[in-house]
């Protein structure tokens, strides 16, 4: 009984994080801001849902598959986010107008000299 309540609480937290991450992906003005908001879907959103499923089901085959899913998501998603951000900066997609500093551009200029 208490296990089902805790699992449902984790599922609710995960769905809330998913919703706000997607809201940030629609509303924010830039590729990098959108990426920074959308990566919040991963670490507490879907991983929270899978952790709730693990707590709710216990350690049977469903629970272990959810645990493997958490491991896959935590290993693969930051790598793909980093690759997308680096590729979009190198392909010359411009930042938004309110940007005040761009350290990666300065670093590339120093490296060319």
């Amino acid at each position, binding site marked *: 009984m208490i296990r089902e309540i805790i699992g449902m609480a984790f*599922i*609710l937290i*995960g*769905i809330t994080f*998913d*919703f706000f*991450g*997607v*809201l940030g*992906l*629609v509303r924010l003005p830039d*590729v990098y801001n*959108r*990426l920074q908001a*959308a990566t919040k*879907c*991963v670490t507490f*959103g*879907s991983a929270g*849902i*899978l952790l709730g*499923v693990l707590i*709710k*089901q216990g350690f*049977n*085959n*469903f629970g272990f*598959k*959810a645990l*493997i*899913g958490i491991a*896959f*998501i935590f290993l*693969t*998603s930051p*790598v*793909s*986010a980093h*690759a*997308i951000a*680096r*590729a*979009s900066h*190198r*392909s010359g*997609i411009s930042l938004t107008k309110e940007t005040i500093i761009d350290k990666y551009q300065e670093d590339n200029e120093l490296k060319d000299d």
Partner: protein
Amino acid sequence: MRVFRWIIGFVIIASFMFGNFFIYTGVILFKLINVVLFCSLFLLFRVIFGPTAADRIVAVDILGILIIGMLALIGLFYDQSFFMDVGLIWALLSFIASLAFAKILEGRSLDD
């Protein structure tokens, strides 16, 4: 005009919260699956109308993550674990696809 847009958004959110776009009625898990479906509708908006190519890549990457959560919820309702197999395969294929798209966007070829 701004009030009109707020009313349209509220009607869409209320229909996804209280309506049933899924199979059965009366269970709280279906309301939650409706919320995740609503989030993927937002993501499809970003995929279609994204200004640059990188927006579309980010949206497709996050769509894969949301699908895993939705498959976990569906499998939790039907009490069968093979939905999580589909989710794991979807996670790995989405990772490889986003890496390949990022490499093409950077301007290098695939055997570089």
